[in-house]
């Protein structure tokens, strides 16, 4: 957050956060980006490329078939029963794509042979082999959906409404105690918000709490910072992301993507080739990865948002965040053009034993 000894007026909420237009152009809905961006420049999966690229190739093939064929699919499939079977298999394969990354990571379900037969019957459908035996999963009563519900989505027990983190922010000169509390998390929108509390920053205010909003890198947000008023650039983005160890495997993919992008006659100089690839660079299947990348930006003070200036503190910059979904640790780097560079934020999750309150917007 803050640079000590700096007197600044707190910014009014940045323009693009309020003007809808700007942020739309900067973060188009996923599917728009999917075909605007060159396919290769998206990272599919850092390691198990085999299955996924193959599956994706199959998928794109499927697309082209659909496009090229003036005759509609139903008719094409009308004929022999075999063709029906074939197309069904085709679809199943297509659907499998999404789970491919998981499947390679997860040991096969066969690893666990059931102790009691009754238990082995009750299993979630992890693999398709499981699902083929119809009478093994537990059944749950179901009612027609209430479409108006907004159930909480979270991908990690450590990142839920109410999750707390504690740690430090370190600059060259000083170390401050920092606490973070997540208030709301909205996975479909790839966003979250919470309070950030810093201690000992100024003498007048032993504790300062700010409200921040975070954007999670994924289908909705790119690695590239697209808010002009945040004062970042692609170069700055890359410099900061590169300081996270978890970025390294991605950097390789980024380089590969850049190489592929170079084959295309893109009007970009060689020096900026890597950054040009990063401009459309995001994560696929990001929710099931060990690390979530985010940007956290503070907006106003808590409790009184109308207080605009605090002597000796500012929160004009923002944090690059790398969150470990398995351990719950947060690393962050504060960035603001006028502040000391690479101030480190290191937070650990405060254990809650998995106790989560029931919170759901109406």
């Amino acid at each position, binding site marked *: 957050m803050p640079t000590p000894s700096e007197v600044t007026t707190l910014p009014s909420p940045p323009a693009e956060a*309020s003007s809808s237009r700007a942020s*739309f152009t900067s973060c188009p*809905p*996923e599917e728009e980006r*999917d075909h605007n961006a060159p396919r290769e420049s998206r990272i599919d999966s850092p390691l198990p490329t085999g299955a996924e690229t193959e*599956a994706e190739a199959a998928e794109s093939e499927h697309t082209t078939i659909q496009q090229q064929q003036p005759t509609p699919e*139903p008719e094409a499939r*009308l004929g022999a*029963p075999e063709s*029906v079977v074939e*197309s069904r298999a085709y*679809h199943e394969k*297509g*659907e499998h794509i*999404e*789970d491919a990354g998981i499947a390679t990571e997860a*040991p*096969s*379900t066969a*690893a*666990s042979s059931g*102790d*009691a037969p009754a*238990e082995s019957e*009750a*299993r979630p*459908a*992890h693999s398709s082999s499981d699902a*083929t035996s*119809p*009478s093994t*999963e537990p*059944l*749950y*009563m*179901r009612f*027609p*959906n*209430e479409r*108006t519900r907004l159930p909480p989505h979270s991908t990690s*027990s450590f990142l839920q409404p*109410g999750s707390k983190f504690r740690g430090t922010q370190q600059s060259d000169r000083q170390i401050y105690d920092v606490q973070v509390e997540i208030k709301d998390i909205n996975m479909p929108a790839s*966003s979250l*918000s919470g309070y950030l509390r810093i201690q000992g920053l100024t003498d007048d205010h032993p504790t300062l709490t700010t409200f921040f909003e975070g954007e999670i890198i994924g*289908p909705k947000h790119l690695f590239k910072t697209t808010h002009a008023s945040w004062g970042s650039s692609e170069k700055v983005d890359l410099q900061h992301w590169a300081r996270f160890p978890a970025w390294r495997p991605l950097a390789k993919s980024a380089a590969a993507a850049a190489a592929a992008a170079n084959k295309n006659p893109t009007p970009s100089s060689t020096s900026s080739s890597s950054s040009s690839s990063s401009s459309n660079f995001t994560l*696929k299947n990001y929710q099931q990865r060990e690390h979530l990348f985010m940007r956290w930006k503070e*907006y*106003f003070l*808590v409790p009184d*948002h*109308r207080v605009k200036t605090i002597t000796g503190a500012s929160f004009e910059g923002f944090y690059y965040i790398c969150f470990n979904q*398995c351990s719950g640790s947060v690393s962050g780097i504060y960035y603001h053009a006028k502040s000391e560079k690479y101030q480190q934020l290191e937070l650990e999750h405060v254990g809650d*034993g*998995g*106790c989560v*309150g*029931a*919170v759901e*917007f*109406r």
Partner: protein
Amino acid sequence: MVDTLAAIYHTGSMEALPEVELEAQATALRKLKNEIVGHDQRKERLVCDGVVDMLVGVLSSQHGTTGSRKSDANGPAPPTWSWTQKDEATFVICTLANGGAAFIPPLYAAGVPQVLMDLLAQTTAPRLRTATLQAFWNIVSAWSALREDPGDAASPVRVDVLTKEGIEVLSGILGSTLSDGDHNQQLQLRLIADIVTVSATTEAMKALLCQSPILDQFADFLAAYSIASEHVEYYGDTLRPPPSTPGTVTSMMSAICSIISGSTYRTHRFFLSPTIRDLFTQSWLASSDQRHLFGARHGFASTGEPLLPLLHIPAYGTTTHHYGSRAFPAMAALQNQERRGRSVFATITQGGDVDHVNAVCSWLLLLARSMQGHSRLVALNLLALVNNAIDADSFDVGHRSEYMQKNRERKKQIALLGVPLAAKLVQMASEGRSSGSDRSAQNDDMLVKEQACDVLALLVREFDELQVAAVDAGAIKYICPLLKKSFDPVPLAKPMWSARRTAGNADPTTLSPTRRSGSQGLPPETLHAMRCRQGALQALAALAEKEDVHRKAIVEAGVVPCIFDSLKPFPPGYSTGDRRRGQVIGPKDGSTTAVLLAACRAAKTMARSVSLLRTSLVDAGIAKPIFQLLHHADPRVQLAATDACINLLLEFSPMREDLIAEGVVKTLCSQAKRCGPGGGNGDLRLRVSSLWALKHLMSASPKEIKIKTLEELGTGWLIGVIRGEQQQVREYISAPGGGVSVGLSAPNAAGERVDLLNPQSSGMDVDVDVDEADPLAEDDDEQFGNDEACANDEEGDGEVMFDISSSTHYQASQLRSTLHSHNHPPASPTATHVPVFSSRRYLSSVRAIEQTPALRAQQAEVAVQEQALDFIRNLLNGEDCSSMFDHLLQLIGGARIFDVLTEKLVPVGIDPATGNGSATSSTRPIYGPSALIVSTVNILTHIANALPRHKQLLIAQKPLLKAWLPHFSHPDRMVRVACVWAVNSLTWIDDESDRRDARQRAQELRACGIEGAVRRLLGDEDLDVRERARTGVRQFEQL
């Protein structure tokens, strides 16, 4: 004037009047009409003098002579004069009703609507028929304005105008127009449609209209219009009415909208109507099904040329941010199961006939594009209703790619072609652009202004993609000025002042009701402002539903104070008497009920943002008016305000303290406990919302508030609610006389129908039972006999749905070709055209889900239980978990608490499909809905995190542990991860003194199989579950 009246009175006795006198009477009536046209004070005077009774006398006089009319042929000269005279009387009524809402009560009291309907049933004379319809329409439209009035809710005019007989009469007239289509008839059709549009306000009336042939008749006219306009090339031979004028078609579309709004089932009735299905299946000479050409990809290319812009929509991508369906996140894990539909709900889970619905939506888009102004708006309204209904039933479809793809194509098409049209109309309304200076154009502009925002809201509600499209089209920019303008003072057109004190009203109680004019209601100008305000608020509420960016843009536009102002009802003391004294109710004085509802909705969706709760909403002071609305007389307003409160009471909302200080705890508790007679659904909804709000109030609250709230609710009551009316449910199960009722069974996690009553019954014939056993399925469909054609057509085809193969890939024609060879002989010569999709069966499923009382009751019950369990969960959440649990133990007792929790985890039935016929011999238990399991397991997690002695207490509950075990493989990751967390806390060693106990706990868990269950989760598909299981296994090994 009084002389004229006297003249009529003089001839008032109807029996055997000489022709001359009748003629004189007719002349007198005409004169009377001419005198009162446009002169409200004269009208009022007339009513006081008893003109209404007299008119009724004239109009109903012919009851006796209908017989003589029948014998016209051999009787004396036809009594044309009496019809002329009735004409004139009808015109007078027309004129009176034109005077506005004040004249409705006396007309009602005299039974004029009924008299007019009777007249309509008797006459075939075009002139009189038109006049009668016109009079009826005038009454109905004034009546509808009165309904919006926030005044006396108990007024007799709240009853419906149309009766079942009345609907039959109207439908009869619609049906008789197959032959000719002159101007008069077009006018009649239009009036009928307008009458239906305005009268279909209550659920009961809508249901009645839906059962009558009238809905299908309107659909017929619409189809005929499309064929005539060459939107569709039609090769079939279904008899259709002659094409109508565009104006009539608009009215009919409005009427359809009115009838179908508010019900998925009714909407399906419309777009699965036989003629509309026929319209798209008969569009080719070729025998194969070509309906996909109507879809977005081919741009409605029925006539060879695409009539809509072609859209390139890439195949379903592999990235999805909704993993699983919205309401049930783990559905992704179940997609394979979902494919095995073999039950009645399979027809629903198949997602319906996607080619047909896409064709209908494209068709409605085409209609909208071919029209202008209000007509276009109505077409878009219809499109919105259809689109919403389609999405409502695709609840279990999961990721079946072809269906998903076509659904996406439809959404995209609406986003690109439909939403911008609606936004454009909002812009027109906002900028006050007029489409012409003549009266009809002005009227058109006014309607657009009132309805454009509403239609936009309806179109984008619940679809984030469409919301984005609307904002991209500038919607917020255009809506906000409309909202602001609705607070401007309006110049009232009518002079309010009268020299004469309203003598007639001096002592109203002495006058008979037919002579007493009623309240004038809100001035039409104010009413117009209210409608605009209501629409704008609805639109803002819809746009603020999902995207924080939209909410912030709305704040930027500076309309949050307007939302605040809209939350104020009209002052309670206001009456129309004031109006005469010069106090006019203007738009600034308050809001009608409809506006209050919309404003609560807007406040609710705007409050879905932590940031706004902490800034603009608290600055605007939104909490206070909402709290006041909790005490509003209208239960709908109470519910809407409670819903908004749910968000305002969240832990991070700075308005929480204010609301607590106002006494929100007491209000919510009493609302939650209040349950109306019969325990209707509405009451339970208020209970759900109140408990929801209280649940939020419990999270991160000081202990005193927790204890106080619990006391206010009462532990006995709370436990009772959580247990649910189990007895009641059992009654439902055994009630419907032996048959299998849909209500007893619910689609389960796998999308299958679960039958709780007849576990032994054959799985295969369950589906067939539904139509017979469902008490709703037949009665009213058959009432008018209009479903028979489609029933004959498609009978038997539905059975294909049982076949396992049918579920893997829904493709109608394909299924047919693979299946009919062995057990389905072609049903009829047209069989090649009839797809496997059975609209009749599908409709009955949609209807069963929407309307089966037992199912609805059970659903409401589950919703209450979920909130009540979560209330306990939040009570235990936080620092004071152990002390709160001690408090509960003290108040409720450990045995009772664990009994209740166990109850929620044990199976509620056995899958009827297992254990018969098929090779599998195992029985699959059926558990309660996922929502309840999630809440229950989370309570267990909290208990496991309390003190060591609480852990010991938990581990000693053998039945509970046994009931818990199966849920370790629950399809929802939230359950699995909560299960593992609880185990991890149980095996955690708090301190050295706890080590021995911890080891013993681990042994217990091992003994009952829970350790094994945790080990199996090491291979879970979800990263989080795997990680937690890894910790769990490590802890087991360390002990």
